[in-house]
């Protein structure tokens, strides 16, 4: 494949504009904390467990385990009532411990449960800081150990034989059905297994616990489910002599906590994008941008590859008319990710094969868009998403379309290929859909993978012209965004992405945000910043 040659000046200009457009978001994230960020700190310090929930039920059936509120929520809520969130929970919590009111986090949680816990800010923060730092370091040490273990296993078992990596979704709702399906998929050639979440989870302001069997169109993301699937994939990986990667989803109201759990259970990739939560889950922008920064710092430390959600825009907006909004979002996500300490190899920027297949030259337009992303982000893996919007119940046509999607992935050197399902418009994938889909991928990569050698879109040709048009449109849009003091936040309010408008003060979870006060302390941020600063 002879890539595109882009005007370097134009590319530099695009990045500089992206930095300006993202600045208000970075500033926001650096000056605020959230309930989920604080809960993540307690999780790093090792606090787990739940007690029965009272009140409203979301997700699975009533009184179910997935409805039990974790202690980390109880503790953070209690601290917030008594001293507020603006200093972070670390000082009041470890002050309670260092001052001997509780032996440790578990006992403290029990006191909270019993309503006997009392939180205050220490006059001398040093002892509390010190204790907090020590506790949190333990969690970070475990994350570091997992990262090392991954590198060890990869050298031992080996990476997938070729690019793109084959990424496959499992979604029965029942972790115990997911396991055999994930293992079957790995045996059939999947390099990466993603377990998507139950439809409701990203709106839960807590992370359920335990092994779960009651998700809708997805399985709950819990630490225990992570552990079960990780073990299952390690087992099949050993059998296959190939390290099989595990993916889950951080986006939503609990990005920081899920990021921590992913690090603690050695997940390898995480869908992580505040934009997705804002646009498609109506989560409050301020809340999730703050959460996103923390969660990405954790991912950076854990050596996890993030996947962003630009592909989703094309399910609500037209893939040709709005192609440039994908490029703009990718540039902004790159900026925000780097600021949080992620390296380029960790940036699975999203894009998708979503052009109406009945449109003339649709395949070549896809190639143009895919090549543009490839040329703009040469060191990022890139997440290449299959057709979904224009898939229909005609599963034969769908199977063909997925084949051409696979071909486009091979021709344009995508890093992560999300396997498309012929039943996309019908059901969540069946065992056989996944198997047939992997056979499709195998045929295309084996038989035509090398075609990249013969693929040479001529300068000034259809593909080259289209790619440049999109880049120019993207720069134009970035200029308009960067010129506004609120930058990206305003652009979202204007409905720039996925033709969906979201205001900075609307959506779910705003009440979980607090502006940091002077002297606020977050041991995790301190420890994580230490590395990449």
């Amino acid at each position, binding site marked *: 494949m002879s890539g595109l040659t882009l005007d370097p000046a134009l590319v530099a200009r695009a990045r500089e504009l992206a930095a300006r457009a993202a600045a208000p978001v970075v500033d926001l994230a650096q000056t605020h904390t959230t309930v989920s960020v604080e809960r993540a700190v307690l999780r790093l310090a090792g606090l787990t467990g739940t007690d029965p929930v009272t009140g409203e039920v*979301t*997700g699975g059936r009533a009184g179910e385990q997935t409805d039990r509120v974790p202690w980390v929520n109880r503790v953070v809520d209690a601290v917030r009532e008594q001293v507020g969130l603006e200093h972070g929970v670390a000082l009041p919590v470890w002050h309670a411990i260092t001052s001997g009111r509780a032996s440790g986090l578990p006992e403290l949680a029990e006191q909270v449960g019993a309503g006997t816990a009392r939180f205050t800010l220490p006059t001398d923060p040093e002892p509390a800081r010190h204790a907090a730092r020590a506790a949190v370091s333990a969690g970070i040490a475990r994350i570091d150990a997992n990262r090392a273990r991954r590198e060890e296993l990869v050298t031992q078992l080996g990476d997938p034989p070729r690019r793109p990596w084959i990424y496959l979704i499992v979604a029965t*709702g029942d972790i115990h059905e997911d396991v*055999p399906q994930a*293992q*079957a998929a790995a*045996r*059939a050639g999947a390099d990466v297994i993603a377990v998507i979440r*139950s*439809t*409701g989870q990203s*709106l839960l302001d807590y992370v359920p616990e335990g092994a779960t069997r009651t998700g*809708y*169109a997805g399985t709950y993301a819990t630490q225990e489910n992570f552990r079960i699937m990780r073990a299952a994939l390690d087992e*099949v990986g050993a*059998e*296959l002599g190939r390290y099989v990667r595990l993916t889950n989803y951080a986006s939503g109201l609990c990005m920081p906590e899920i990021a921590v759990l992913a690090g603690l259970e050695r997940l390898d990739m995480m869908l992580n994008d505040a934009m997705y939560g804002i646009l*498609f*889950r*109506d989560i409050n922008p301020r809340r999730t941008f703050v959460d996103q920064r923390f969660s990405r710092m954790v991912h950076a430390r854990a050596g996890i590859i993030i996947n962003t959600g630009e592909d989703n825009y094309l*399910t*609500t907006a037209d893939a040709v008319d709005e192609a440039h909004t994908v490029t703009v979002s990718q540039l902004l996500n790159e900026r925000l990710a780097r600021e949080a300490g992620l390296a380029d190899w960790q940036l699975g920027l999203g894009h998708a094969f979503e052009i109406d297949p009945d449109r003339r030259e649709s395949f070549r337009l896809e190639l143009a868009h895919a090549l543009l992303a490839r040329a703009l982000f040469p060191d990022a893996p890139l997440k290449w998403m299959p057709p979904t919007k224009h898939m229909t119940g005609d599963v034969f046509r769908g199977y063909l379309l997925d084949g051409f999607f696979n071909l486009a992935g091979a021709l344009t050197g995508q890093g992560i290929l999300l396997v498309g399902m012929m039943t996309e*418009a019908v*059901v*969540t994938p*069946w*065992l*056989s859909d996944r*198997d*047939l889909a992997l056979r499709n991928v195998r045929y295309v990569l084996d038989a035509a993978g090398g075609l990249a050698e013969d693929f040479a879109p001529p300068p000034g040709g259809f593909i080259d012209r289209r790619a440049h048009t999109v880049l120019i449109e993207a720069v134009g849009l970035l200029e308009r965004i960067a010129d506004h003091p609120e930058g990206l936040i305003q652009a979202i309010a204007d409905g720039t992405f996925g033709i969906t408008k979201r205001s900075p003060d609307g959506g779910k979870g705003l009440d979980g945000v607090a502006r940091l006060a002077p002297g606020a302390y977050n041991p995790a941020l301190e420890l994580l910043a230490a590395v990449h600063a």
Partner: protein
Amino acid sequence: MPDGTIVRPYGDTTGDGMVQTSFTLPVPPGPRADGAALQLAAKMGIEPAMVVHSHGIGGGASGAEFTFFVVYGPVRHLVDLDAVQVEERAYPLLSPSEVDAAVKTRLRRALVVLGACIGTDAHTVGIDAILNLKGFAGEKGLEYYRELQVTNLGAQVSVPDLVRTARARRADAVLVSQVVTQKDAHLRNTRELAGAFREAMGESRPLLVVGGPRFDPAMAADLGVDKVFGRGTTPGEVASYLVHALVPTEETT
């Protein structure tokens, strides 16, 4: 075909009854598996059935635990076209201006329409296609109609919230979308919706209309709602139905 009203599937000759089917059985591949597939095909009425393809799925050390099959053959069943129940549109398709005229002259006030996706379903493209100006399949959405006062509450709306809003806004019709169907979530959610409105408002409840790609339009009664729309619905059909269901046929005096 044998007789206008009795037909059979058509492969390459009238009346040959040919169908294709595929499925997976939790049986390791082999002659026994193929035999099991033939047994199932026979029970489906395919006889003589041909297992034209089968391959194992999964299986590592233990060997594949599943087998995928492709089966071809003639079904013995006849299709009686007279016995087909179709949700025939019992009302005329009106143009936007006709809808507006009907509401204006016969209802004499704007028709209040509320739309939402309930539960944890975040799929708004469908309801938006019906409600938003942009519309669907070349037809403008209900927001385009002068005499319809439309509010789109978006996705992930809880049923209690929806009931509250409907009462507050004096909604004439509540339009609800359900796209996620796994474990029949759409059916359960719709029944919950109908129940909640019955409880809260009894006879005075607004017209309840649900839609989504996997709904069978024949199920309205069974689900306790007034109307169900399936895949490919257009805004015009919905607007026409609203007039039919809510606007008195005679001018109100």
